[in-house]
């Protein structure tokens, strides 16, 4: 029951908070935060009870829902699901604290965040397409309103673009799954994977199979995003209020990567192999171009948004590189396992680091009176040493400094990719360099140099802000030094994925 509980705690709390009277704003906010802590406790309990030694799904619950269509209520988690659930449960309270003082009907804001959280949990635990899709869409609506109602000056078009892009992807995916259903009579991920394993889902209809594959791919590629389907992202992340941007990048972007591993990899192995080359090229583009674009930005939030695309590009590089058929002479299993383990680490760690970065940029914006240009500041280290130190840690984690959490994931991805797809991996390396340069530029322009007179009174982090950042900063160190905490969970799931391929 624990997974059902996990999914419905935020949903129920969200409804309750929304139903409170308009004069109970504070109560609503506190209630929402308590619910997110309860969800976090449940997720941690899940992690503690999870049996690392066992591959496959655990905590399974299933019940018929619409039997005539093969739709079930079917939840369960493996290592992949557990990591993403844990990540979401961590990010939501963090993001709530970042929005603690949000104005204009905070009760509604916090109840929407809870709906979004429920959507995330549902997506990461559902094992039947329709069930999964319910929650995939459920997360979209609150995200839309969070941007639309609490966003920056261009929130209107940003939210609209975000919604329409994602919805178009969703419809393509739904159509593809209808075709799958028509061919196999199943919506169940595992059943579909088995059918694919037994030799083709469409019995010789190559073009249809490809079209269906591309439909699903489109839905996921928009969500991650994969260049060239990323154009909604910079606007949405930049216009979103800080807390929402943290949710979008920390947790929602992982829905797409999760889909690649849960759906595309097991159900379409043949097509993944056939389309590997163009997909690798796009993954390299997703790494290099957004890094270059971030380099050219003058707005801190936009820079962080582009760097987010770049970091998810590594995940996609790892996945596509690993989608290589074992040829007779060399067994690639070790490299494939390295790359996929790297992807899972990267998902988790990017979630933490990127949301921390958005948090700090949000603090700069709040203190700077809505200014957040790269050149608006300087020398802040003198006025706010703790601020500088903590944001510096997040920046270094983001550029992949060994010893911090960003490193193991990117290392494993490149370790695998350099052998599985040498050329693409080599071409992606400039992306790493550019990332390093622009992240260091931020550090330099904002925190070093002479302190302008108007910022001389720049306040350092308050105790509340330090405590908010503390858990994430701690995790950045812990997971950098002990990546086995994550790989222990991830590795059995990776082995399972490789068996299915």
């Amino acid at each position: 029951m624990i997974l059902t509980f996990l999914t419905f705690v935020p949903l129920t709390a969200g409804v309750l908070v929304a139903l409170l009277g308009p004069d109970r704003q504070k109560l609503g906010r506190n209630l929402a935060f308590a619910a997110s802590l309860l969800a976090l406790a449940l997720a941690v309990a899940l992690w503690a009870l999870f049996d690392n030694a066992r591959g496959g799904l655990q905590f399974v619950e299933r019940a018929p829902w619409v039997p005539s269509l093969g739709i079930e209520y079917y939840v369960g988690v493996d290592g992949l699901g557990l990591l993403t659930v844990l990540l979401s449960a961590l990010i939501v309270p963090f993001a709530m604290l970042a929005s603690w003082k949000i104005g204009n009907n905070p009760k509604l804001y916090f109840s929407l965040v809870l709906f979004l959280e429920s959507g995330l949990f549902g997506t990461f635990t559902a094992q039947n397409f329709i069930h999964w899709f319910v929650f995939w869409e459920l997360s979209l609506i609150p995200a839309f309103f969070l941007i639309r109602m609490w966003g920056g000056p261009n929130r209107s078009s940003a939210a609209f673009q975000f919604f329409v892009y994602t919805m178009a992807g969703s419809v393509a995916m739904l159509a593809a799954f209808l075709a799958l259903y028509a061919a196999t009579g199943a919506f169940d991920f595992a059943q579909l994977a088995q059918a694919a394993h037994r030799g083709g889902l469409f019995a010789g209809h190559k073009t249809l199979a490809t079209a269906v594959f591309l439909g699903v791919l489109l839905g996921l590629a928009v969500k991650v995003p994969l260049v060239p389907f990323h154009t909604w992202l910079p606007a949405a992340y930049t216009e979103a209020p800080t807390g929402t941007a943290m949710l979008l990048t920390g947790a929602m972007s992982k829905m797409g990567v999760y889909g690649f591993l849960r759906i595309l990899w097991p159900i379409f192995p043949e097509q993944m192999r056939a389309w590997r080359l163009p997909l690798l090229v796009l993954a390299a583009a997703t790494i290099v171009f957004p890094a270059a674009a971030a380099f050219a930005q003058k707005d801190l939030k936009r820079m962080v948004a582009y760097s987010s695309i770049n970091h998810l590009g590594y995940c996609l590089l790892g996945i596509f590189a690993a989608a290589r058929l074992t040829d007779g002479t060399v067994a690639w299993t070790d490299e494939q396992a390295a790359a996929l383990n790297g992807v899972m680490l990267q998902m988790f760690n990017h979630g933490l680091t990127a949301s921390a970065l958005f948090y700090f940029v949000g603090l700069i914006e709040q203190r700077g009176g809505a200014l957040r240009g790269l050149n608006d500041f300087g020398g802040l280290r003198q006025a706010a040493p703790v601020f500088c130190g903590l944001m510096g840690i997040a920046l270094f984690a983001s550029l992949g400094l060994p010893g911090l959490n960003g490193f193991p994931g990117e290392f494993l991805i490149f370790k695998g990719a350099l052998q599985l797809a040498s050329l693409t991996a080599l071409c992606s390396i400039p992306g790493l360099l550019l990332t390093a340069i622009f992240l260091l530029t931020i550090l330099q322009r904002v925190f070093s140099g002479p302190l302008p007179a108007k910022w001389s009174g720049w306040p350092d982090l308050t105790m509340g802000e330090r405590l908010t950042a503390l858990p994430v900063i701690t995790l950045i160190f812990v997971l950098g030094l002990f990546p086995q905490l994550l790989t222990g969970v991830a590795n059995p799931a990776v082995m399972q994925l490789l068996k299915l391929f």
Partner: protein
Amino acid sequence: MLAWTIYISFLAAAFLMFLPGDNPRPAKVTALLAALAGLACALMGVIQCREHAGAGVLTDVVNAPWIAELGIRYHLAADGISLVLVLLTGIAAVAGVLFSWNVETRSREFFALYLALIGGVYGVFLSVDLFLLFVFYEVAIIPKYFLIAIWGSTRREYGAMKLALYSFVGSAMVLVGLIAAYVVAGAKTFDLVELAKHSHSFPAAFQNWAFIVVFVGFAILAGLWPFHTWAPTGHVAAPTAASMLLAGVVMKLGAYGALRVAMTLFPIGLHTWQNTIAALAVVGIVYGALVALVQQDFKFVIGYSSVSHMGFVLLGLMTLTQIGLSGAVLQMFSHGIIAGLLFAVVGRMVYDRTHTRDLAELQPMNLNQVLPFAAATFVVGCAASMGLPGFSGFIAELQVLVGAWQTFPVFAVLAAAGILAGVAYTLRVLLKAFFAEGVVDARARPRCERISLPERAGALLLLAATLIVGLCPRLLLDLITPSLNSPLMKPLWKAGLP
């Protein structure tokens, strides 16, 4: 029990007609009690007949001779399909009264006509005798005309007349076909079950013309493109409760008749015309959505969206697969609820307060601040209308698409594109009407009374219906799916299906 849905409605209508005085309060209360009693009867009927319906058996309610010379009987019976639609009528009737709580002019007559309409609708869904069905069908048309012509708004005489003319042309076509079937069968009966037994012995040439005449006659009322033009103008002209009923149940009368009468009586004709009608349905889906996308009048958007959503019903019927048909019936229910909800927001919550439906005028009012409850209701209604999972429309349109994919894959793809256009127009109208922040003008913000209790109750009733069915579609599917094999539906499957 089920028969009482009809009697209560007509008795209450008659009572209202003879109620002395012009005080609106007793009229409203009487109407609400009658609608609630109807809903209660419908619910009890569903519970009573559930097992029969689940086994695909027709439950006789009343079966008595009426005009013996012609073999006409007063025969009411229900299978799962009727039950679902009777339930829809009950819910829509209650919601309609709640959203008409502010009708002050000639309210006695308003509610009398309203209940007469409801009674007729219940009658159609329960009749097994074709003649009886036709009588109820006509009974339902006449009050509609008066409701629009007397209590309507924009171009009400035009809208009412157009709707009445379309309806009467449709009925005339239906009548011709029915009499022809009666004569050709030569069995001296109007009973659908009896006639259905003959349906495969009707000559093919006869079926080919009779089918299209009867089908189109009914489908006019279901908004079949290109005979849909009465729907947007009629919806816009009608008072709120009448638009709710028009979209909620009256359009379902057409789809129900098309399924129950045209398709089962003339299965060979059905196969001849199957592709043509499916093509028209798809045109309706896409065309309705695209036209809705460019409307400036709030209510026209919803009016055209009804044409688009009813296209899914007709497409589902034409798939001739179990899954497509059960999707079509579920979509009838789902659209009835959702369209009712959207019309209630537009007509009652917004128009009655702001006195405009022009999106350009609504934009600067920033209604999400002025009417938060209406905004929240409309957001959820829009999500349901878009067919987002978790709401009734999702499972319904999904089933239609799965069925269409099996029969005509190309149409399935086009219909899916129609869903996308649906997302676009729904989002557009939602943003323009409630969330247009860029052009907010504090002076334009109207002073509005708060959303009243009856409105809240009505909105919650409809929201609960679409959510419950969306989350637990088996409640209705367990009634619908077996009924596709009930004696009334048998001819559909005997026609040598692929």
